[in-house]
């Protein structure tokens, strides 16, 4: 019985051999066939030589979470054969390069082996080491096209789009695709029982990674200053921003830039530059990962206390310390919520996919300026660096940046005196001024104790007045951050709460559990401080599962601390091994808790 448009396969190669283009080609071809598809790049912290994998999941229902068991393994890296053979589902297929014999120990009786002499054929057709290696990787894409029934017309069109201007390269790529395709067709019963058939489910979608989408958000929100220190997995965010700026931010008359990107000496300087630029009135941001936030803590306290806007992207990776830089995690939830010494609380936004990364990036600048405080956008390596299928991005042209309470020269003309931290209308937000605008606007921004007039103080009452107002201000932001996504089911007494990239695994898991007769309500928090809806949801359910990707249950901790929910009401479901969460993690976690309770 063939399984159409619902399977997963994995390609095992070595880093730096050109496999990325072949994998991208396969993904894109499936997407163009109208079939929902996601790709997860599992890569090493290395430039060349170490093992790397690419996982492709095809799901006509549109599920995007990772599945850790594969129907087909394309095993092209002898160094990982043992592991790769073991990961194939019973009854599945293993494709390998039969230019060399496969060791008997790698033979599993429950698998079908597809040997294709990729190296042999490419060595015969191409000359030169480099070309032979690169083309071998394109050839497996050709073989897969035959085995899985990928539309060869689409593959040809994609090669043309990519290499249209380099006919020689286009020709050799097409040859390599044909070598693989023809061999598979001649020697195997194509297509396999797992196969593709065109659908019409991707017409209004795009394939994009979260870092690129976030960079677009920064561009559209009008960010002009970006400061950064390169770090995996955040680097591509600034690189994408730079690329967009080169296209859209040049003054036509002079070819001069309407942006400044500063590569700082470290993350401390990067956030310092952002704070300096925001203080002067620009929209400024820095992309980083956990180690960067660790370094930025001191400056974050300054921005919080002196009330200077700043936008930070934390593309989370596996910590603590250097951790696993190329693996994903949600390990910075607590750190970002309360970064810095002293009493602080920061606005955090938690996108679940690249679409929200785009939207929340733009929203972050408005929130940072309205509340005059740092705003974190927390994604993770999986959202940031992998290609996700999402509905096309859209933009409302009536959007105008919310600059918050910034006094103009005219407004300053009107006032007798200006006091930076005087709350005149009781909303906790005080007016600020920018340098160079008006003599009356001058004040001294400081991280040292200050009173409501902005003057230095060591007076306890004056100090308390200011920090209490800041606390009220940030609490009010709970109403301004994106509301949680709620999904209820009739008769549900239990809830499931999650954050960010776990969403994909949770919705799939809840569908499966519902099919088994288990009704569970769902809430995905999208902003911090938590709004009233969050507390209400937890209150309304007998117990809630809190699903997240870190060892210590940081979301659960935040929920307990901030909503006062009792520990007994929050059951922790966690996976933190560095891969994106899968539905089975959620299902087994939930079931284990239920069995224990029963």
């Amino acid at each position, binding site marked *: 019985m063939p399984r159409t448009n619902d399977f997963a396969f994995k390609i095992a190669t070595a880093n730096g051999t050109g496999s990325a283009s072949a994998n991208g080609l396969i993904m894109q071809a499936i997407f163009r066939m109208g079939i929902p598809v996601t790709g997860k790049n599992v890569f090493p912290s290395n430039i060349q030589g170490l093992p790397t994998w690419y996982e492709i999941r095809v799901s006509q229902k549109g599920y995007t979470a990772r599945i850790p068991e594969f129907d087909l393994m394309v095993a092209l890296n002898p160094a990982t054969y043992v592991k790769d053979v073991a990961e194939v589902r019973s009854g599945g297929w293993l494709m390998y390069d039969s230019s060399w014999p496969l060791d008997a120990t790698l033979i599993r009786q429950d698998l079908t082996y597809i040997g294709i002499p990729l190296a042999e054929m490419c060595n015969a057709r191409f000359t030169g080491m480099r070309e032979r290696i690169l083309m071998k990787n394109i050839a497996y894409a050709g073989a897969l096209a035959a085995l899985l029934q990928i539309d060869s017309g689409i593959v040809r069109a994609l090669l043309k789009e990519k290499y249209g201007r380099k006919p020689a390269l286009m020709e050799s790529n097409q040859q390599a695709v044909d070598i693989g395709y023809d061999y598979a067709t001649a020697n195997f019963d194509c297509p396999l029982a797992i196969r593709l058939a065109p659908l019409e489910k991707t017409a209004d979608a795009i394939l994009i990674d979260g870092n690129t989408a976030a960079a677009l958000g920064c561009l559209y929100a009008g960010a*002009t200053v970006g400061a950064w220190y390169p770090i995996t997995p955040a680097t591509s965010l600034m690189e994408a921003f730079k690329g967009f700026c080169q296209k859209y931010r040049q003054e036509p008359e002079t070819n001069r830039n309407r942006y400044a990107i500063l590569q700082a000496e470290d993350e401390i300087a990067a956030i310092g530059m952002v704070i300096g*630029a925001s203080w002067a009135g620009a929209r400024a941001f820095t992309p980083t990962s956990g180690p960067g936030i660790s370094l930025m803590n001191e400056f974050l306290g300054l921005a919080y206390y002196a009330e200077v806007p700043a936008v930070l992207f934390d593309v989370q990776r596996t910590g603590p310390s250097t951790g696993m830089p190329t693996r994903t995690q949600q390990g910075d939830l607590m750190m970002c919520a309360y970064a810095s010494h002293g009493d602080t609380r920061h606005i955090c936004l938690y996108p679940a996919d690249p679409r929200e990364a785009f939207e929340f990036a733009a929203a972050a600048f408005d929130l940072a300026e309205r509340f005059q405080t740092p705003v974190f956008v927390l994604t993770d390596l999986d959202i940031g660096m992998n290609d996700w299928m999402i509905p096309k991005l859209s933009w409302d042209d009536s959007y105008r940046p919310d600059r918050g309470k910034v006094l103009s020269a005219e407004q300053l003309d009107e006032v007798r005196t200006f006091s930076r931290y005087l709350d005149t209308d009781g909303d906790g937000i005080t007016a600020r001024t920018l340098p160079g605008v008006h003599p009356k*606007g001058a004040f001294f921004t400081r991280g040292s104790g200050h009173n409501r007039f902005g003057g230095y103080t060591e007076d306890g009452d004056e100090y308390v007045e200011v920090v209490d107002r800041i606390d009220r201000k940030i609490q009010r932001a709970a109403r301004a951050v994106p509301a949680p996504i709620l999904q209820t089911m009739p008769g549900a007494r239990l809830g499931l709460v999650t954050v960010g990239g776990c969403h994909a695994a949770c919705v799939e898991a809840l569908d499966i559990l519902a099919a088994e007769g288990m009704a569970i309500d769902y809430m995905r928090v999208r902003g911090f401080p938590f709004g009233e809806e969050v507390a209400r949801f937890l209150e309304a359910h007998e117990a809630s599962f809190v699903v997240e990707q870190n060892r210590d249950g940081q979301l659960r901790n935040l929920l307990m601390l901030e909503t006062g929910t009792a520990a007994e009401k929050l059951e922790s479901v966690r996976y933190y091994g560095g891969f994106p969460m899968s539905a089975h993690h959620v299902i087994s976690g939930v079931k284990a808790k239920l069995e224990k309770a029963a």
Partner: protein
Amino acid sequence: MTYISKPTVHHPALQKNAIGLVRREYEGAMTTLCAGCGHDSITAAIIQAFWELSIPPHKVAKLSGIGCSSKTPAYFLREAHGFNGVHGRMPALVTGANAANRDIIYIGVSGDGDSLSIGLGHLCHAIRRNVNVLYVLENNGVYGLTKGQFSASADPGSTSKKGEANTMEAIDGALLALSLGATFVARGFSGDKAQLVPMIKAGLSHQGFAFIDVISPCVTFNDHDGSTKSYAYTRERNVEVVQADFVPHAQAITTEYDPGTVRSVLLHDGSWVRLRKVADQYDPTDRDRAYAFIRERQKHGEVVTGLLYISPDSSDVHEQCNTVATPLTQLPHEQLCPGSAELEKLQARFR
């Protein structure tokens, strides 16, 4: 003494500058530093320089780190925005602010602990970027606020107030700046206002990072025998190499020009620095020789002061970033956001 406020009403006969402001209008709050602190003399020189240049105070932003020196921006230019950031990291703040609004005149005030220890890395990179800022390092060789520990600029062999000798090599700010490619390097002495004021004025007009290391004795913790940053020591061993005279853009150079002893350098804004050599063989536009000369005199226990190096063709961070002439803060949203139609179009790339 902050509870004593200064009068803001002035005698009508006080001398006014080109924009009609009296010198007092460039002052700030009352100082809270120790009586006789070198830093207060530097503050006075800064006030004098800004007043003489007729710079509108609110077009200036003054930034600093943490420490005695970093308090001083409160004591000048009360109509300028001030930013007292975190310890050692003012260069990052001023880099960002300058990137955002290039029309503001930036002055950064720092100390030797701030610049040469905790923030050394930031200082180095701000110099490399050639951020357009006047950077004043108020250098007393000691941590004052924490009561007398050696700083990184304390000379080996100099003693603390308690009599302990410093065993480590000193970091010389001027040599450091020269080696990092600084385009303007000067050294002054807080007790020599006549030298300091023109130096500050030249630094303000310099397009790029203008670094001035000012020896500023700490009267409380570092003005004793055995200190190499005391008033007595500095006065005795001060060797002035180049006397800088600053001529603003508006004024023509009419004074005598004597080849061999006076050299004029044109700054980006059209003003001139006239450099009068007082030491033989000194060429302030030759980086290597400037470096060698400072080292040579150091061996004799001498502190070389004056405008030590200036590069007339300095290209600042905005040149490097190729930014537009309009400050980024003043670009309208329409010039920044490509709009919905373009978003639709650009997404073809992601299909």
